[in-house]
């Protein structure tokens, strides 16, 4: 049994990866997992750029990034299913739009690759994306408005959620049939859901990301879904979008199990640690670092791309070190703050007991 499994893994390329790279991917997966478990997003932001900087082909970097997102989403969805936070009807409706979006994004990557522009354009897109989201999260964190998942808000019962004004306006004005009723007593046109799904699918297919950082706010502000259901349904949706995208990329040789298997091995453990840390650490204090990490990531991808264009390995290495270093620093900050917070609580309990 073990022999045949190892044989299958060997045939699929897992055993072709050197021990050093396996260790690097497990470690990087651990860091990415802590960030994903804690912030509820950002799981894939750093993987594809890091793979590009490690000189993988654009289709392999995006395809393997997407397969990693798929595995991570399966694990996270199982957890959210247990908590009753997945709207399966909404998820299923979104699948068509997402699938078409992914296919358009994927076809764009292969077309750009055929004319030699894929790596550069994907890197530029990441600079804009990481820079934009990083600036938004940093601004919100500095203004005390948070960013990412509001852990306290996510614990409220579904009936206590107010539908945002923008979602109410969309629900009133866009009444193209068929209309559907979703969890949280939301009634919305299937076309609004499909448009949101297509846009995020396009982003997923082009960049290899899960698209949760766009899909989650879109579900909340455009469709009017309660926060915890948006989180759970987004993950369920990523299972499909990631699965379909990975399959499409896999057919073109774009999924490298030597990258995905060790990354997932590390990230599944990291996500448990990160998720547990949300119970003991005030996320608002750390979100500013998360925003800073995304901004550093944007700079790093830019530096790496310049290094690639001018043929400077030193700049490419600097970009890679910056990306991994920024993620390691923020993950370490989460772990350190968690341990300090737990120790303080234990000491207080001990004093009270005495």
């Amino acid at each position, binding site marked *: 049994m073990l022999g045949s499994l190892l044989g299958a893994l060997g045939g699929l390329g897992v055993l072709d990866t050197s021990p050093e790279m396996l260790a690097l991917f497990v470690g990087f997966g651990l860091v990415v997992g802590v960030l994903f478990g804690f912030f509820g997003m950002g799981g894939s932001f750093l993987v594809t750029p890091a793979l590009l900087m490690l000189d993988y082909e654009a289709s392999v970097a995006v395809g393997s990034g997407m397969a990693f997102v798929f595995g991570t989403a399966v694990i996270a969805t199982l957890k959210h299913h247990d908590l009753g936070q997945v709207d399966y009807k909404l998820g299923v409706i979104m699948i068509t739009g997402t699938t078409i979006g992914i296919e358009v994004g994927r*076809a764009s990557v292969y077309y750009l690759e*055929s004319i030699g522009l894929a790596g550069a354009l994907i890197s530029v897109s990441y600079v804009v994306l990481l820079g934009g989201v990083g600036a938004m999260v940093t601004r919100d964190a500095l203004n005390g408005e948070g960013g990412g998942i509001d852990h306290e808000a996510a614990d409220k019962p579904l009936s206590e959620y107010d539908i945002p004004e923008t979602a109410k306006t969309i629900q009133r004005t866009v009444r193209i049939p068929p209309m559907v009723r979703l969890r949280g007593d939301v009634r919305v046109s299937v076309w609004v859901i499909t448009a949101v799904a297509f846009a995020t699918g396009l982003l997923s297919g082009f960049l290899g990301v899960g698209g949760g950082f766009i899909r989650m706010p879109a579900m909340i502000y455009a469709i009017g879904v309660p926060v915890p259901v948006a989180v759970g349904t987004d993950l369920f949706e990523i299972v499909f979008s990631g699965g379909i995208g990975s*399959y499409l990329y896999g057919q*073109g040789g774009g*999924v490298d*199990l030597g990258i995905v*298997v060790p990354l*997932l*091995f590390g990230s599944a453990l990291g996500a448990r640690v990160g998720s547990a840390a949300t119970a003991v650490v005030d996320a608002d204090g750390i979100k500013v670092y998360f925003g800073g990490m995304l901004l550093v990531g944007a700079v790093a991808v830019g530096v790496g791309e310049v290094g690639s264009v001018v043929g400077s390995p030193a700049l490419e290495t600097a970009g890679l070190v910056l990306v991994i270093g920024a993620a390691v620093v923020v993950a370490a900050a989460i772990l350190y703050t968690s341990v300090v917070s737990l120790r303080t609580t*234990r000491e207080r309990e001990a004093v009270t007991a005495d």
Partner: protein
Amino acid sequence: MAGLEIPTWDPETALLIGVILFEAFVLYAGYGGLERLVGPYLMDLVVGGDADAR
């Protein structure tokens, strides 16, 4: 591979995705079991048990 495509059945790619799916289920169950088994011991080790706190 450029151009829009309808996914076609490919056993090798299906096996590839199956391996990732299988790994995800194994990790979910495996790490969950490990957390229950060694979680409290690890917490005491990292945070310091009640005796240390006093």
